[in-house]
C-alpha cells in the first residue's frame, strides 16, 4: 500500500538490507536460546496427564470383542483385501463365536513395536489396545522374560494339543503356556533368474562380485548374520560372539565394497518384482506367495538356512483374554489353520494341516507337497534357530549391526 514509494535506489536497498538483517537476527538464535528459556517456562506448567480411550482392564475376561495386531499379508483375505469378508477365517470366527474382531496389520517391526508400543505402555503398567500381538520368537522371549504377558487360558484352548511338539520345549516357555506360534518359516536366498542368468545355491553366491550392487540383505539381524555364519562354516545356533562378529566383519566389508545395495524388510519383494535387484536374502512364505509368472526363485542355501516363527502373545492386563483364547483355539483347528496356510504359505505350527490340505484337493493339495511349506526331513535338518543372546550381548550386537546397515 504505502510502503517503499521512495524511488531513490540506494535508500531502498539500504532499507531492504537493514530489514533482512534484522530478520536474520530474530531467526538466528534458534536452539541454544530455546534451551536457555525452557527451565523458566517449564515451571509454568504441570503434568498433563490424559487418559485416552484405552481399553479398561477390569477382569480381563472379556469374550465379546477381540483386537489383534499382526504383520501385513499374514492372514487370508478376499480378493478385495477384506479380512472379514464372508468365507475368511475372521468372518467364520466371528460367526461361530459372536466375538467382534478388530484386526490390524500394524506390526511392522519387532524392535519398533517394542519401543513405540510395548515399552511405553506395558513397561509403565498400562494396558495395550491389542489382546493379541504376534512378535518373532526372540522378541516373544524378551517380552515373556519381562513378564509383560498373561498366561494363556488353556481351558479355553483344547486345540493346544495340535501344537507341533518341537515348540513345547523352548527354554523361555516350556510347555508353551504363554504363547502360541502363528506361523513359522525359513530364511534363505531368492533370486530373479532373468537378472542372475542362473540358479544360486550357496549363501556365498550373494557375495559373488558378479552381482555387485544388485543384492539386498535383511535388516533382521538374526537372518542376515545367521546365514552369513552358515557361509563361514560357523554355527548360528551357538550364539558365539566371536563367530557373530566374524560374520559381521564379512557383511561390513561387503557393504563397504558396494556388494550389498541395501538392507531391507519385506520391501525386497518389490525390488525383486521390479527387477531392481538380482538376488537377496528372503523369507520362504513371501516368495511362495508371489505370482509364479514373475519367475522368482527361492532356496535354502546348501550350507543351511535360518528357521524362525512368529508367535501369539496376550499382553499383561489384556481386556479380552477369553476371546483371545477362543481365537487361538479356532486357528489351531487343522481345517482353519489349513485355510490360513493356503493363503500365507508359511510353515504352519499346527498338526494335521497337511492332511487337511490334501483332503481339500486341487491347489491346496499341491501346497501339501511344497517343501517350503512342509519341509522334508533333509530340509529340516539344514534349518537352525539363531542362538539366544544375553540382553547386553543383544544390544551390543544389534548396535554394531545397525552401524553396518547404515
Amino acid at each position: 500500500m504505502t510502503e517503499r514509494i521512495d524511488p531513490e535506489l540506494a535508500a531502498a536497498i539500504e532499507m531492504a538490507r537493514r530489514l533482512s538483517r534484522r530478520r536474520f537476527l530474530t531467526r538466528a538464535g534458534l536452539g541454544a536460546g530455546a534451551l536457555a528459556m525452557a527451565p523458566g517456562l517449564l515451571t509454568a506448567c504441570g503434568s498433563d496427564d490424559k487418559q485416552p480411550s484405552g481399553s479398561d482392564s477390569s477382569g480381563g475376561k472379556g469374550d465379546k470383542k477381540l483386537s489383534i495386531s499382526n504383520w501385513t499379508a499374514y492372514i487370508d483375505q478376499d480378493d478385495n483385501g477384506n479380512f472379514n469378508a464372508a468365507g475368511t477365517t475372521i468372518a467364520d470366527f466371528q460367526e461361530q463365536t459372536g466375538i467382534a474382531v478388530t484386526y490390524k496389520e500394524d506390526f511392522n517391526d519387532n524392535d519398533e513395536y517394542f519401543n513405540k508400543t510395548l515399552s511405553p505402555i506395558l513397561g509403565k503398567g498400562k494396558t495395550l489396545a491389542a489382546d493379541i500381538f504376534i512378535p518373532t520368537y526372540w522378541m516373544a522371549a524378551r517380552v515373556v522374560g519381562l513378564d509383560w504377558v498373561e498366561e494363556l487360558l488353556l481351558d479355553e484352548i483344547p486345540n493346544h494339543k495340535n501344537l507341533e511338539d518341537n515348540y513345547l520345549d523352548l527354554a523361555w516357555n516350556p510347555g508353551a503356556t504363554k504363547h502360541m506360534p502363528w506361523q513359522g518359516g525359513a530364511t534363505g536366498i531368492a533370486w530373479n533368474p532373468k537378472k542372475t542368468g542362473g540358479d544360486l545355491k550357496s549363501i556365498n553366491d550373494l557375495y559373488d562380485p558378479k552381482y555387485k550392487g544388485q543384492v539386498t540383505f535383511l535388516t533382521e539381524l538374526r537372518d542376515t548374520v545367521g546365514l552369513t555364519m552358515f557361509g563361514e562354516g560357523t554355527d548360528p545356533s551357538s550364539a558365539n560372539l566371536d563367530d557373530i562378529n566374524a560374520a559381521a566383519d564379512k557383511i561390513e566389508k561387503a557393504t563397504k565394497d558396494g556388494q550389498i545395495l541395501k538392507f531391507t524388510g519385506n520391501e525386497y519383494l518389490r525390488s525383486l518384482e521390479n527387477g531392481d535387484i538380482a538376488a537377496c536374502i528372503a523369507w520362504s512364505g513371501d516368495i511362495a506367495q508371489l505370482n509364479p509368472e514373475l519367475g522368482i526363485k527361492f532356496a535354502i542355501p546348501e550350507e543351511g538356512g535360518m528357521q524362525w516363527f512368529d508367535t501369539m502373545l496376550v499382553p499383561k492386563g489384556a481386556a479380552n483374554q477369553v476371546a483371545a483364547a477362543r481365537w487361538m483355539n479356532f486357528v489351531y483347528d487343522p481345517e482353519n489353520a489349513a485355510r490360513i496356510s493356503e493363503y500365507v504359505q508359511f510353515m504352519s505350527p499346527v498338526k494335521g494341516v497337511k492332511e487337511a490340505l490334501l483332503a481339500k484337493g486341487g491347489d491346496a493339495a499341491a501346497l501339501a507337497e511344497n517343501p517350503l511349506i512342509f519341509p522334508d526331513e533333509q530340509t529340516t535338518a539344514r534349518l537352525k534357530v539363531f542362538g539366544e543372546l544375553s540382553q547386553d550381548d543383544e544390544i551390543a550386537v544389534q548396535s554394531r549391526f545397525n552401524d553396518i546397515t547404515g
Partner: protein
Amino acid sequence: MAGESSLRKGRKAPYALIGPGMLWLILFFLVPMWTLLRIALSEKPNAFLPDYELTWRWANFSDAISRFQPELIRSFTYAGVATILCILIGYPLAYFVAFKAGRFRALLLGLIMVPFFTSFLIRTIAWQTILGQDGPALGVLKALSLVSVTDAIGLTSNGAFLNTPQAVIGGLTYNFVAFMILPIYVSLEKIDPRLMEAARDLYSTPAAAFRKVVLPLSLPGVFAGTLLTFIPAAGDYINAELLGNVKTGMIGSQISKLFLKESNYPEAAALSFIFMAIITVGVLVYAKILGTEELSA
C-alpha cells in the same frame, strides 16, 4: 494518531491474542525440548525398561558424535546440495511467476502446490517407478545409449538411477522445492514495479539492474526458503530409505534407529541436540555471509 480508541494500543489485548498459541508452543515444543535435553544427559539402567535416570552423562554427546560422524556429514552435504538445487530451480521459476506470468500468475502459483496434495510417500514411490531399472527414465537413456554419458557426468551410478546418492538428493530437492519457491515468490512480488522501472533507467543492462535491485530485495525470500528447505531436508530420512542405498543413510534414520531399534533414548536425544546445534551454527554463519554480501552489493 488516534488516541484512546486505537486498537493497536491495547495493553492486554495482544497477550490475549497470543495466549493460546504461546501456551501450545510452550507446552508442546519448549517443554518436550527440555525433556529431551534431560534424557540426553541420562542413563537407562535397563535398556528394555522405559525408565531412565538423570546422571549428567555428557558422554552421550561424545559417543553420538564419534559414532555418527559420517551420517552427520552426509546429511548436511545432501541437504546443502539439495538446497542449492532448489535455489537454482526455484528462483527462475519464482521470477517468471512474479514478473512474466501476467494473468496466469495465480494459476501458476497454484500449480506449484498441486503435486504436494498427493502424499509425499506416494510421490516418492512414483519416483521409484520412474527411476527403476526397468523404468522409463533409464529406458530412454538406454534407447539413446546415453547411460555411459550420464554415468560420466554423475547423473547415474553404474548405470542406475535408483538406489544412488543422486536419487536421494533428487528426491530431497523435489520434495522441498515448493518451500523454496513460495518465499522467493513472496519477496519478489513485493518489489515495487516503480523501483524496477527506475532500476532499468539507471543501469545499462537488465543483468545489472537485476543484480543491484531485484536480487538484494529478494534475498530475504532466499534466506527463508533456504531455512525451510535445508532444515527439513537434513532431517529427512524417508528419501534416503526409499531412494538410496546402504551408503546413503542420513542422520534422521540414525536417530530413529537409536530410539526404535536400540532402545537407546539418551544417545538418540543427544544426537538430536548435536544435530540441532550444528544447524543453529550453520544458520548463523549463513546469515552472516548473506548479510555481508549484501553490504558489498
